[in-house]
């Protein structure tokens, strides 16, 4: 392989590594979420939160209830604990609320959430669901730091509690940070008005599970895909060696 081809391959790999950040509306910092799609308990907890708090307004119409077997639930468990909007486990997870009502009540029809994790990314969802705050200027009484003026209210407020967003000067070493134009750099901080049923740590874990569930729901086959991938790569690696020696043995007399 020539030097040029090596440089080009390295450049191509560098390009692939430059992954763009998830779609963010504001400069609000997106928090990273640590979650595991092999943790069945976490996915089941997320599924519970999803059907209790999300499915009232949002559908996940591309997902059938019985797809939840893949996260370790039996048909009976699904039927008894998670099905509020459907009769049979083979039916899709649709919302009880029509898109028309949603548009009338919230100004915008709540989007279907089947593949929302693939559009927004796990970190974005994790941050978004934790950055609601009270805002008397908005129609619902709620606003969101990551997604300003979003139509959705904080449906999880009983768990999270109520907060407001305060602007305060950024401090470094006990002194306000100058913005270089005679002013000070301001930062946004949440201030709790009333605590919720959960501690902030419990709430973060609940959202983490919910996000894990939505990531799973976005592509239910993703774990099988990776498991199969390991075997495919294993087989192809052997094939690469075999075809290499075949090639070299045919070419040994070509000078």
């Amino acid at each position, binding site marked *: 392989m020539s030097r040029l081809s090596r440089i080009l391959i390295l450049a191509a790999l560098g390009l*692939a590594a430059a992954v763009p950040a998830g779609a963010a509306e504001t400069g609000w910092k997106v928090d990273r979420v640590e979650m595991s799609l092999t943790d069945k308990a976490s996915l089941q907890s997320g599924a519970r939160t999803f059907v209790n708090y999300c499915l009232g307004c949002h559908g996940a119409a591309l997902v059938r209830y019985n797809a939840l077997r893949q996260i370790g639930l039996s048909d009976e468990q699904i039927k008894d604990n998670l099905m509020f909007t459907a009769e049979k486990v083979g039916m899709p997870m649709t919302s009880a609320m029509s898109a028309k009502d949603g548009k009338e009540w919230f100004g915008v029809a709540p989007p279907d959430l089947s593949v929302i994790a693939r559009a927004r990314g796990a970190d974005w969802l994790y941050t978004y669901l934790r950055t609601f705050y009270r805002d008397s200027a908005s129609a619902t009484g709620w606003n969101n730091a990551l997604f300003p003026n979003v139509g959705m209210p904080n449906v999880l407020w009983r768990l999270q509690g109520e907060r407001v967003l305060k602007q305060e000067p950024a401090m470094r070493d006990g002194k306000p940070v100058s913005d270089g134009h005679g002013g000070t750099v301001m930062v946004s901080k949440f201030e709790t008005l009333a605590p919720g049923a959960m501690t902030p740590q419990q709430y973060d874990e609940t959202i983490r599970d919910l996000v894990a569930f939505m990531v799973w729901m976005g592509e239910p086959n993703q774990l099988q895909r990776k498991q199969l991938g390991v075997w495919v790569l294993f087989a*192809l690696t052997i094939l690469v060696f075999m075809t290499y020696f075949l090639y070299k043995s045919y*070419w040994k007399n070509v000078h």
Partner: protein
Amino acid sequence: MANGSTTTPVKQHWANGLMDWVNDRFPLTALWESQWGKYIAPKNFNFWYYFGSLAAMVLALQIITGIFLTMNYKPDAALAFASVEYIMREVPWGWLIRYLHSTGASAFFVVVYLHMFRGLLYGSYRKPRELTWIFGCLIFLCLMAEGFFGYLLPWGQMSYWGAQVIVNLFAAIPVIGPDLAIWIRGDYVIGDATLNRFFAFHVIAVPLVLIGLVAAHLMALHETGSNNPDGVEIKKQPKDPATGLPLDGIYSHPLYSVKDVFGMTVFLLVFSIIVFFAPEMGGYFLEYNNFIPADPLKTPAHIAPVWYFTPYYSILRATTTELMYVLAAGLVVLVAFYWREIPRKLRPIVLGVAAVLLAGFFLIEAKVWGVVLMGASVLIFFLLPWLDRAPVKSIRYKGPLYKSALAIFVVAFLVLGYLGTEAPTVLFTRIAQVGTLLYFGFFVLMPWYSKIDSYKPEPARVTK
């Protein structure tokens, strides 16, 4: 029989008998031997010569996976998005077939770009291979059409608005533009009619043309024989008395057959890493916004085409009113510069065309010229065989001018590609404008720099 002895007839294997039967009626063996079985190729192919066979393999992969996708996909604006997710979730192995197809689309462009770059490195477009090159350029055009039509089918936001942006380009054409755009869409906006016709183009019209062109590309290649990294014409070499082959020629079968199979397995290994572990490829192969269903009422803040179109998209966006002044100046300088080279009879025509272009640069809005430049940036590849005046084919014997020009072109292409994925800023637009000038400079200045460059003599035999 004359001497009365009996001879046992040689028993022929039934398969040979069958081949004889076919060959008496259809030149199957002759076709196989002329196209591959007895094709004589130079023995010094290197890394860059893998990508032709890889492109053929990816074409086969796209056709086969495409057939199976068609069985479950619904070309209907109300059903398309959900039918893709149906394939991903409910169709057995549907997710694999879909990822093979979506990754295959990007892989197709990767191998074709590398295949074309090989042509630039070793002068594969030079005489006598001009038609092979032209068929190849036509294949590339078809591939772009195929990618563009196919990208609408998942009916996500990027599918929808990407198609909207590109079709609206046609609306920029003076006089007939708006009507033309409606005719292409079959509607005032991208809609169900558009989806249906794009589906028809994607699954049958373009692939038919593509397969015909690939056949022509290969037949033309096997007629002239392959170029090689030294640019040596093995057909002009004396024959080896022992083998009857040119001194540097070998039978491509089985030698290049086994080598290409090795290349294919390496390719499949890399390809599988993406299919199984990163099918979105960080948003480059499957854009994140395309997981939001198409919404004609909601324009995304940032519309970016898929990565393989971004260099041309950058050129389109870089063509602003201020660039027109630079282009006008460039045109004047170019005509003056090449004036003595232009045959006397053609001079009035050249002057006339230049005058019309100059007037057009300022009378017709820059957006239209952006479309023209974007088209020209692809079509200009067709002219390469006649722009290059070097006495040698391969970069190995070319001088510093061509080497620098090619390096600048590759950097400009990559930078334009990157900028096409980003939202435009003042600085980015300025860089894209420089990139656009460098991109076209590679081609329009080639008759000059390829003439005055210094060259090493081409060897009589291939080197290692």
